[in-house]
């Protein structure tokens, strides 16, 4: 993973991805009322009762942050985001929002952006390490 950590963040690439989905994502991020009703629909929140597992929290603190900074995020921010969207979420696409916000697509876009910068979810068992 060393090579990936040195490589600078390709902001242009991120921005390209952001603008591609801009119409949908900006609207979704804007009209989330932070009511927390999506929490119970996420089995991980149910199991751990920890607010960082609330679907809206995951979306806002990953994609929300990237959009707010218009793609100019540094590697540390992506690394912080990594746990949120790769470990705290299995993308089972079952989070329910009473307003109909499509949370899975937001988290999956955040994942795609992270992956495009060499930031991947590290699974509990080390992959490829003999």
């Amino acid at each position, binding site marked *: 993973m060393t090579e990936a950590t040195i490589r600078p963040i390709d902001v242009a690439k991120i921005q390209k991805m952001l603008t591609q989905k801009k119409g949908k994502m900006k609207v979704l991020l804007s009209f989330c009322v932070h009511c927390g009703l999506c929490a119970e629909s996420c089995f991980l929140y149910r199991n751990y009762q920890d607010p960082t597992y609330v679907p809206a929290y995951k979306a806002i603190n990953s994609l929300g942050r990237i959009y707010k900074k218009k793609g100019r995020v540094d590697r540390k921010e992506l690394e912080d985001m990594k746990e949120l969207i790769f470990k705290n979420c*299995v993308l089972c696409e079952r989070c329910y929002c009473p307003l109909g916000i499509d949370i899975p697509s937001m988290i999956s876009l955040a994942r795609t952006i992270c992956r495009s910068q060499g930031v991947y979810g590290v699974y509990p068992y080390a992959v490829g390490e003999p």
Partner: protein
Amino acid sequence: MIIAKVKPLEEVKTLIKDFKRILTVGCAGCMAICLAGGQKEVETLNTKLALSFKKDLTSPLIEGYTVERQCEPQFLDLLDLMVEDYDALISMACGAGIQFLAERFPNMKVFPAVNTTFVGVNRDIGWYEERCQCCGDCVLAFTGGICPVTMCAKVLFNGPCGGSQDGHCEVDKNIPCAWVDIYKRLKAQGRLDQILDVFPARDWKNQTLGTFVLEEFQARYSSKDNEGSQR
């Protein structure tokens, strides 16, 4: 991914009617995505069972817990302590998940609540279609990405058979004939030569229990103490 369908309520109910404390274990992997065994299905099943038992004037304790995936040991760790205070488990995982759960808790009575159907795709919400039979020796390169083993009812490698008619399989009007589609796609791509020669008889490699260790992990598991799974 693996697709499954929830078992009829009555069938599940008869399985657990003699137990007082039941835990329904959901799986948030493929089962959640194909709406068969995720957390919401666990709750739905539990509610239905509770209502149904109420009619029979018995009220067993039925609780639910969903894990990320029942097919990975570390996600079952959480259940180690919980399982003691139940007499039976209902697993809403696919065939693999439920066996892993049963293997993990050998003295617990574990019952399936879903029928695993096939490895398939999500055509749309609630509409699933088979794509792969895991035959272990993929020929999709030669058939333009359409699998003769799964999509052809007679597993032909030199189709189409005499029975295909206006594009659908003789077996069912709604099932397209795989070989007609293969022919069309290869023709469009100018690769018709792929299916002009006789495809030789196949070695079916999936006849014994499928198990393998990746090269880079050979050393890790070669020591005597863990021969195969700890059945």
